[in-house]
């Protein structure tokens, strides 16, 4: 959920997702209206939603909190791939691409 981008939200968010290797669905909350409705006060913030559409946790950005809340949401039997530095896409190739696309 990309929020508070200010200007050129599509270009900025696309460049950012390329840099950090962020796949999956990305939605644009350009005005911050959804963030405001949810009481989100900063970034990054995670909102965990269960199968009943009920929020089970908000925040949880430290690696250990993220893992704990994900485990709580998914239950004990689901395998979780631990996020690591490499999976965040923070490699030089991506960074250089990002720079050239920003310049």
């Amino acid at each position, binding site marked *: 959920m990309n929020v508070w981008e200010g200007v050129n939200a599509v270009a900025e968010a696309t460049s950012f997702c390329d840099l950090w290797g962020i796949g999956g669905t990305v939605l644009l909350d350009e005005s911050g209206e959804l963030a405001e409705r949810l009481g989100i006060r900063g970034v990054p913030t995670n909102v965990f939603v269960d199968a009943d559409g009920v929020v089970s946790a908000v925040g949880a950005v430290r690696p250990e909190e993220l893992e704990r809340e994900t485990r709580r949401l998914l239950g004990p039997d689901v395998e979780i791939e631990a996020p690591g530095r490499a999976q965040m896409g923070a490699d030089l190739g991506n960074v250089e691409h990002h*720079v050239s696309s920003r310049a």
Partner: protein
Amino acid sequence: MIRDQGRRPADGGSAPEGFSLSGTVELGGPAAAACQVPGDPAGSFTVLGEVEVGLDPEGVVVDRNTNRAYVACSRSNSVTVVDIASMSVVDRIEVGREPIDVEFDDESGLLFTADARSNQISVIDVRKGRLVGAVPVGTIPAGLALDRAGRRLYSGDTMSASVSVVDVDRLERIASVPAELGAGAVAVEPRTRRLYCVNFVTATVTVVDTESLEVVATIPVGEGPCAVAIRPGTSDVFVVNSLASTVVRIDGTTNVAVEEFPVPNAPVGLFAGPAGDRLYTANRGDGTVSVLGLDGTEWGRARVGTAPGGVIVHPEEPGLVLVANAGTGSLSLLEDTLSGPSATEARDSVHPLVGERVPGFALPDLRTGKVRHQSEWAEKKYILNFFASW
């Protein structure tokens, strides 16, 4: 005057033509919530006011002679000038693209911005109120530190993985020192004349002897180091790790990280109080600023605008704290009268959304442009991750 809590800056004011004043953000409601009760013997940490300044404000400095704050509004490509007494915008000065950090030299009246997307430092003469030059530096400069005694300005150049050394009198880059990828925030310890540069990507701090311009140490810290501050009168160097949500203390005599303590989510701003007894962290994920004792105890926490970053103490008013809120696009002014941990110290509480149904939403998909509805994810378990590119 400054601490007159009842004041409300008038909209309009004496702004020059050519831009519209954004006025002030109304206080009240949850955004103005403070964390102390009146009469707390430990004092309080409370919001006095807030003024809109521009898009994604990051760095902030104060000119003590004029009592004006200069705020680098990175997505507005400009510096917004705020009269602190009235908390009103009095000027806006265009600089290069994406100014992030800002420094001010009292002696010359020159203000410097690190323009991340122009690979330069813009130079503003505040007495003339206009841009007077630019100094080319490395790729994506993101942090600045002024060594007043040495008449040098340093910039952490993110993609060059280096620190540029600028002569502030000649306004020329005179050297570049290797750091590591993600070099950004920098600080100079005035007694040892050592420079500390945080490297966001490699999660380290590079220590440079500013006399020889040699790297003397590289210190591992936590994930995502974002800001660095030196406790006045000491060799204690503090670093905030935005991804780990911690503060690390480095002993500057041994250049070893000796202590790490948790702080609220995603701290990106850090300032060491002038009396040497406290730290301020701006917690970007939490929408708050914390006052911390040197042992990591949180003395108080105040809600500011959304996604705060740059935080400083007023150079003439040690109890006055200024914070740039990147999400809200505003500058907050706070008063800190704390003398220790407050009886009503802010604690992590359960977010009011927990246990509630997530409300319906309909927002465009970044990649397809098509509107996606929350109902698509009904009966599924999912995580909404709110992020911004800055």
